[in-house]
């Protein structure tokens, strides 16, 4: 049909739980309900929603770590749901993730060099000089001096840690990187640096991003298309300028109106008047 990097159609993610005395009462909760979208090569889909909207579950399903209860996910043309162990390994090369908290997503005892080398060793079986050269190249790509390879996360600032996490994510030259709130834990002045880095890497390497965020301002800067999730369903989906500039859905409008911008001084004061 198309050469989309990832195609999600009719995705349903349900989690089962057991409640009651001795867990006798089984139940299930539908976190993602009939979600469909695709991401083209070298482009970014912003997935927007509040906590509990299902955005992280969508990401986890794509990475093969959440149950696909119904629907289908094609990653590089291969079905994620029916992949066997060997295929899953192969898919992991192609889809990587950057998490919100670099503090917890990096192993505190592992050097930066080893952190970045890990996916290269395990997924591409790289060794020796080639491995070292690739690690240096990746550090350079994310704007860190080669000397950082011997440091451990504690010796880095929050922004530098997130650069390391990004270097690890792009190490195997994936076609898709899922960014789950990658700038939310950073200071504003550092946020902008990381956003610029992600945008630059995309234009240099042609990566596609699934960019998950509750921050509409950040999404506007990085996304080509946006899907707004509310209670597990996509309520609005389209080009970023259309969705954020002229939203049609009621919930999208509520979301945009709630963003505290510096352009509406006294916005919440006026809301009460």
């Amino acid at each position: 049909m198309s050469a989309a990097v990832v195609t999600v159609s009719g995705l349903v993610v349900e989690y089962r739980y057991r409640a009651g005395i001795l867990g006798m009462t089984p139940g299930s909760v539908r976190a993602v309900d009939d979600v469909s979208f695709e991401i083209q090569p070298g482009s970014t889909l912003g997935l927007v929603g509040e906590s509990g909207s299902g955005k992280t579950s969508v990401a986890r399903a794509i990475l093969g770590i959440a149950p696909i209860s119904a629907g289908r996910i094609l990653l590089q043309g291969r079905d994620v749901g029916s992949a066997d162990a060997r295929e899953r390994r192969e898919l992991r090369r192609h889809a990587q993730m950057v998490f919100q908290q670099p503090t917890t997503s990096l192993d505190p005892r592992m050097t930066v060099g080893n952190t970045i080398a890990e996916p290269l060793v395990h997924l591409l079986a790289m060794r020796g000089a080639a491995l070292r050269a690739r690690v240096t190249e990746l550090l350079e790509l994310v704007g860190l001096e080669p000397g950082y390879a011997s440091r451990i996360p504690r010796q880095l600032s929050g922004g530098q840690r997130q650069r390391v996490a990004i270097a690890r994510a792009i190490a195997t030259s994936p076609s898709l990187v899922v960014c789950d709130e990658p700038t939310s834990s950073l200071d504003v002045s550092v946020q902008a640096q990381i956003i610029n880095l992600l945008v630059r890497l995309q234009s240099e390497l042609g990566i596609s991003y699934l960019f998950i965020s509750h921050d509409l301002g950040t999404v506007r800067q990085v996304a080509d298309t946006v899907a707004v999730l509310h209670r597990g369903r996509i309520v609005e989906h389209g080009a970023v300028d259309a969705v954020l500039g002229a939203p049609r859905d009621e919930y999208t409008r509520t979301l945009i109106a709630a963003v505290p911008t510096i352009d509406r001084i006294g916005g919440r004061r006026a809301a009460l008047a």
Partner: protein
Amino acid sequence: MATATAPIRGPSVPSAPALQAEGLVVEVRSGATWRAVVRGADISLERGRITALVGETGSGKTMTALALIDLLPLSARRSAGRIRLGADEISGLGSRAMSRIRGDRISMIFQDPATALNPVLTIGFQITEPMRAHLGLDDRAAVARARELLVQLGLPDVDRTLRRFPHELSGGMRQRALIAVALACDPEILLADEPTTALDVTVQAQILDLLREQVDRRGLAVLLVTHDLGVAAQVAERVNVMYGGRIVERGPVEQILGSPNHPYTRGLIGCIPRVDTRMRPLPTLPGNAQGVWDIPAGCRFAPRCAHAIDVCRVTEPELRQVGADHASACWVFAGSAGGARE
């Protein structure tokens, strides 16, 4: 809507500050020595006004707030500064007298209501406890007052909420409950440290509305500590921008956001990602604020500043007037080199 039994103070004409701190210095133990993380901050809060204290990680904003109510961690101390609450000097008070003031005349709300509330006590107990302790109310009177407070704060099904435990409430409801605890004794001052940071944007908007409403209704004086200039823009009248343990710019919110003077304030405003336009690349501030404590002399922002001149690296600038009620600490834009505009 029912009103509280507490006296309702209308918004007043700003007169004497409700709380005034001068020359606050807070030091943190670092090995065998003490290192100043707040280096001479002045804070003034007025009744019926929200004053924002804006800064990034490590700017000293939370330490400033904690120093005001003598709640600094054990590894920190206030080594200089005077604090007046209304007409009363409170900087020299002992811990017992301060604990009477906290909760009674000054209250505080924190970022994460999940950890600020006691998980094993009901919401009702936590709201009525300060009323019994500080106001000497009996159970009946305290519960009646708690009910009214919850109604005022928009919590549904009040009787049921009073019997609930924090984990049974959503994040937004927990923050409302925490505000109820803070307002239980009808304080004059409320210190709010990142009160909406852990919340979704739509819930954040509701909580900011609520905060504003309570300020207008009660004449509360609020110090809003936040990293988010957007949040300050929504509700605050005045903004203090903190960097490297100092207030580098302060003034009315319209001035700070509309015609900022300090290069740090301008840089910070410039790198906020906007919803209405795409900027490629986004303007950035070089480096980060974490190395600020290694700078031996001069303006702490100088190494990241595109406008820095020689004097900036030698002598730290003081706050100077740059407009009506607007001050900035910058040799280039507010100092003699650039010439104060007024």
